[in-house]
């Protein structure tokens, strides 16, 4: 591959409510046994990008743990590899990353030392499969300075938390609005960009000299009439999960056969850290329907229309409906959970009732755990 990868994984997000108190959005568990960043990393690996930097800043504990080895995504290479780049105090810098462009600027040596002619920049909070080679070809074909991958939001979804794009018939971007109050288009940026490495270095250095730190505002929007910035519209499955309802519905999408077949049973695969968990176990009394259950779980109760992540325990006579149970949750007997997201490592007392009556309820329960 003629490109290196940069994954912007540093952001915090108030739209994730308490779920982001524990971890960066990129480390959010997805679809039972993955984390959000697995999709971007697997796409890069499957596109034969060999050298990838992950820029982290906010609450990166879970993320760093997940990235403890590069071998899961086949990045354990002599040529290239996986670089986790955090802000560092140096002789001439004592700032955190002040924005996405600043994060790249503070690690400019990573770009300067590489020899690949192109850079693929992507965020780590989206669920998708993408061959970046196709976008690179498109980029070269259009003689673009920057190519922005974009997607049409499904009807009924509000584009307000995205960057909206309007392109002309040649797909050149004419309008780009970041988080508009009133969106003029439902085409949004996926946060995936292809750019020539030297071009990126030049733009980032120039922005830094002007004290501008944001990649979207200070590079994409500011340069849109000067540089050739093109949109590449993807029609495949693409979801951003950085908002509680979108996070919930994206997980629930995996209950659909076509979504599962696309991600799980179509080459190439999505990779994740291997946890060495035993198979899931179903004891007498288990009743599971229209649900996903991950390895290491022990199920004794009823699970309906739900996604249960790894190593969770569901006690006798429990009823779990339309909910997401994150990793390592212990649910004691006779508990009812409906329309909830249960935060990982929660311990729920016997006989509890949690119901999200008007929307999705997030449950965080820290009780003593005696068994297991």
């Amino acid at each position, binding site marked *: 591959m003629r490109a290196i990868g940069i994954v912007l994984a540093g952001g915090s997000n108030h739209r994730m409510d308490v779920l982001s108190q524990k971890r960066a959005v990129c480390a959010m568990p997805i679809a039972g046994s993955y984390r959000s960043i697995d999709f971007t990393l697997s796409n890069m690996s499957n596109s034969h990008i060999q050298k990838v930097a992950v820029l982290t800043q906010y609450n990166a504990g879970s993320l760093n743990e997940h990235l403890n080895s590069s071998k899961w995504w086949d990045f354990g290479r002599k040529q290239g590899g996986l670089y986790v780049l955090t802000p560092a105090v140096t002789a001439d810098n004592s700032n955190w990353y002040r924005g996405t462009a600043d994060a790249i600027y503070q690690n400019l040596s990573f770009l300067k030392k590489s020899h690949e002619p192109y850079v693929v920049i992507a965020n780590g909070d989206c669920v998708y499969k993408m061959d970046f080679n196709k976008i690179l070809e498109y980029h070269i074909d259009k003689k673009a300075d920057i190519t922005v991958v974009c997607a049409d939001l499904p009807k009924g979804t509000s584009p307000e938390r995205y960057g909206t794009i309007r392109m002309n018939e040649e797909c050149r971007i004419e309008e780009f609005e970041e988080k508009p109050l009133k969106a003029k288009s439902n085409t949004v940026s996926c946060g995936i960009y292809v750019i020539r490495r030297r071009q990126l270095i030049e733009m980032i250095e120039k922005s830094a000299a002007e004290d501008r730190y944001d990649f979207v505002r200070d590079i994409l929007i500011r340069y849109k009439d000067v540089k050739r910035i093109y949109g590449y519209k993807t029609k495949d499955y693409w979801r951003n999960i950085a908002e509680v309802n979108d996070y919930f519905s994206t997980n629930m999408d995996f209950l659909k056969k076509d979504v599962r077949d696309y991600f799980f049973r179509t080459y190439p695969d999505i990779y994740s850290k291997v946890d*060495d968990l035993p*198979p899931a176990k179903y004891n007498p009394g288990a009743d599971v*329907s229209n649900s996903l*259950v991950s390895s290491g779980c022990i199920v004794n109760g009823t699970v309906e229309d739900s996604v249960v992540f790894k190593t969770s325990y569901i006690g006798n006579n429990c009823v779990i409906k339309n909910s997401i149970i994150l990793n390592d949750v212990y649910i004691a007997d006779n508990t009812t959970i409906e329309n909830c997201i249960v935060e990982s490592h929660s311990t729920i007392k016997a006989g509890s009732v949690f119901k999200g009556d008007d929307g999705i309820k997030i449950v965080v329960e820290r009780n003593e755990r005696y068994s297991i």
Partner: protein
Amino acid sequence: MVKKEMIAMLLAGGQGSRLGVLTSKVAKPAVAFGGKYRIIDFPLSNCINSGVDTVGVLTQYQPLRLNSHIGIGIPWDLDRNIGGVSVLPPYEKSENSEWYTGTANAIYQNLEYMESFNPEYILILSGDHIYKMDYEVMLDFHKANNADVTIAVMPVPMEEASRFGIMIADENKRITDFEEKPAHPRSNLASMGIYIFNWKTLKEAFLALKDQPNLDFGKHVIPYCHENDKPLYAYEFNGYWKDVGTLSSYWEANMELIDIVPEFNLYEEYWKIYTKSEIQPPQFFSKESKIERSIIGEGSEIYGEVYNSVIGCGVTIGAGTVVKDSIIMNQTTIGDNCELNKAIIAEETKIGNNVKLGVGEEAENDTAPHIYNHGLVTVGEKSFIPDGICVGKNSVVFGETTAADYEDGILASGKTLIKAGDE
């Protein structure tokens, strides 16, 4: 100079012919077990959990699956700069080229491999048992007794003792005598086929016995050490240990995993069992599915009903299908409206719709009653069974069968239908 205190030699070359078609194409240690594992995962995981980071795996019979499973040892953390896992097949020499002719002969042919690590102790393991054991504790016992050879033994019921190699030990656990499958056993301590040798003692024995045909540990090496007054000790092991050498014991050991609190617990946090996982997604259950008392591997999709069964990874079970008391290995697809009773179905098999397995009266198998018994139906790997077929008990199907292979769409109990493999 490289120095490893103890290295392990894992015997994985045997066919395990009593597993019938399950080992037609793969060596016994590579047979799937417990949903997502293979038998060899247990000794390999024991090694790394015991701090033994140098393991030579001796392969001979059908090694392809084993080789690709072990690779460079990543799943067991046995990819090491020094040591790690090495697969050791028989090789051609300038003179006297031969296959591995016996358990000890296989080890003898790899004297140089062992020598290169300059070890104090050699741990000999076999790749066909299910157990969790800390070899470091056994080594401590070996050292504390100043033993030359320590043999792991396990107490078995006296009436079953005549099926095993029996060790007779004094009150200090020093072995005074041993007998192979005795008619009237004098002790109930059965050898588990796990030995620790002082490297010097083992080398000396090999040099003295090297011309012995079919050199075997139980028949030649251990008796030689005993005759030469080397101190032999019996290390008693009281945990779960299961030989899965026959189809019925293989089936039973799998079924024990689905007990509410199984004796052999895979869910303990420490002493994990590692395996190569290619399939990672969660498992899916449809609206109509039913499941009870079963374990299921990653990425399987269940549209039917599953009771008392062990299901591997990437398996699809169609709507209306009822699976009972069965073992279904990785990547197998079962069609709609099937009925499976006490079936063992090997990897990558396809079963059509409306197929019934394990129905009717029991009848003794006509070709190998000592292998196919206990009412089990066994289907070999990469087989195909077309729609609407009925298969009886104690029967075997292996290979891509067509409707014409079944008279009136039926394979009666005790019948054998093999269209693939060497047998």
